[in-house]
């Protein structure tokens, strides 16, 4: 069995490794002085930019009423059928409202199509990414969990108006 020759034998300096170790340490020391990116989650929280697609939520006007008119378009467009809407009649000027609005967060894939299709700007992607459940029932988000005051969502709404 013939010995396979390396393309190039190591030089003496390379053989003693010390210059290479010094080079590596230099890089380490250089980065020690640079600004840090790692966050100490969950003590420290990441606040995403407005372009981020967290869990979809329903916009609640300042008077406590949802914008949603239960048209069902989000439910129709949702690729994994995560949204269930049941309409009912109200005395308000927009005569239709969702008596039930449920998003199954185990089905949702955060595609944002519901937000894109909504004719009322009533469902938007929030910055909430903290979703963990211990049973299937907890993953069904009803109106109580979905309704979010409009001022908390303003930067996403502005983002959509600029780029949608």
């Amino acid at each position, binding site marked *: 069995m013939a010995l396979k020759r390396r393309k190039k034998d190591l030089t003496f300096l390379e053989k003693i490794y010390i210059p290479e170790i010094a080079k590596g340490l230099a890089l380490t020391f250089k980065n020690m002085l640079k600004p840090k990116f790692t966050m100490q989650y969950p003590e420290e929280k990441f606040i995403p930019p407005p372009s981020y697609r967290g869990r979809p939520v329903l916009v609640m006007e300042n008077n406590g009423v949802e914008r949603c*008119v*239960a*048209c*069902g*378009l989000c439910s*129709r467009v949702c690729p994994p*059928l995560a949204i*269930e809407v049941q*309409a*009912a*009649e109200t005395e308000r000027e*927009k*005569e*239709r409202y969702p008596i039930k609005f*449920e998003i*199954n967060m185990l089905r949702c894939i955060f595609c944002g199509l519901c937000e894109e299709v909504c*004719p*009322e700007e009533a469902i938007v992607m929030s910055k909430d990414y903290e979703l963990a459940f211990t049973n*299937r029932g907890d993953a*069904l988000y009803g109106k109580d969990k979905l309704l979010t005051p409009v001022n908390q969502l303003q930067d996403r709404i502005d983002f959509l108006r600029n780029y949608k």
Partner: protein
Amino acid sequence: MPKFVLDGKEIEFEQGQTIIQAAKKSGITIPHFCWHESLSISGNCRVCLVEIEKMPKLAIACSTLAAEGMVVYSESDKALSARNAVMEFELINHPLDCPICDEAGECKLQDYAYSHGSGESRFNEEKIHKDKRVPLGPLVMFDGDRCISCSRCIRFCDEIAKDPQLTFIKRGDRITIVTYPGKELDNPYSMNVTDICPVGALTSRDFRFKARVWELSSTKSICNGCSRGCNINLEVRNNQVLRLTPRQNEDVNSFWMCDHGRVNTYKFINAEDRVDSPYLRRGGTLTRSGWDEAFAAASSELKSYSKNEIAFIGSSFATCEDNFLLSKFATQIIGTKHMDFMPHFDSGFGDNFLRKGDTAPNSLGAKTVGIFPGKGGLDLEGIIKSVKDGQIKAVFLMEDNLIALRPELKEIFSKLDLFIVHSSNFNETTEIADIVFPASTYAEKHGTIVNFEGRVQRLRPAVATFDVDRALEGMSLSRWDKFGTKFDSWAEGNKRDARSSWRILAGLSGAMGHKYRYGTAEEVFMDIAKSISAFNGLDYEVIGELGAKLKLDSVSKPAIA
């Protein structure tokens, strides 16, 4: 036959037909709002404008008679630009209501705005606002903003319901629909205007906001409100019937159905009081039991009476298949001649349009397949009298709420030693029954019924039960049905452990040591077609979607037709 040319295609027509009619007969639909096959021509919407060679101006296809050698273009640049202009005009004052409008998804204006609209409005002024949410009658809601003034609803009341109740008031862009002073839109056919209104101006108060139309599955069936047997679609979501709509059949109901059929014949299917398994009376109260246990109990009870002590009551609400097997069961297995069914007659209900005084859908069918007393046997009144006298000790009743119709029978039938009932809901009759079998409703099974003039028509299952599975049975599926799992609250809904009456009878006869080898309703029907002359030559294929006539001269006309 004379011919004319439409968009390069030769079209045959009959003298007196308009362009739009002749085109429709050959399968070409020229866009239209106000024209309706069964109504007079109004010609006000102008969407059907077409270009005709040698004519100076465009003409409306709905009122221009077709003529030999005419050359018509419905898709030429001129015709298209006219149609686009008409659409723009229609949309000037039309509100952007689609998200809250029930018509969305089946709206002609929406469809044509999509196919012919420019996508944006050049109208900068304030739109005209009219009254919204006006109840025109007990069942119909009007939205003035959405009305495109096609006058279909007015013409329907005048010409079809023959009860003029609606009219236009004001002119130009302020025109709107009202009922005549002191009148309501309350004729027995009023809800048909919600079907023919091309937009969401007239909507059903019964169905309002219950569902979006694209969420519904639709199944071709027959109304069970009276012996006309109007052809309908059963529209279902999450295993609940949400609305019925008429289905065109020129031999039965044309495009229409009555309000009674539309709102009163489906709610019991979704009701909370459905019988959801067999029940046996133990210690005075009805208690749930399994099927085998109930069959064994019914079989041993029935065996303890002599054949002349048992009477059978079939049903003008059950299918021919159900009644046929009941009749076989009574004559072959029990051997009794006491058999009849209860007539349901309401002289106030019938009219000279669709509604018939016989308010059960299948009286003629029940009679034709053998529900009548044998030679020397007792008819219904005879059975009642003998129950009173104590000569009849056991009654087997299929799918009829006898006691509700005749409350005086409650005391008499309470005296029975054995009262077996097939019922879909708990009611006055099941209250005094000893054994209750859960019967599928007309929306949960295959079967046939025969209308007052001897037309046999098919029922198809639209609501799943333990007995008919949506996917396996080939029932129509909505997107929700197709992709739902057992973890989704919106899939499959409330499924009940009910069976078609013929299947219950087949199970019971098995327990009594006599096997009927029917696997499906179709096999029962094949037997009917073989053994009953009026049904000779028929099968489910032949009956199809529109029904077929029985050879009825071989049957005596029932007294209550």
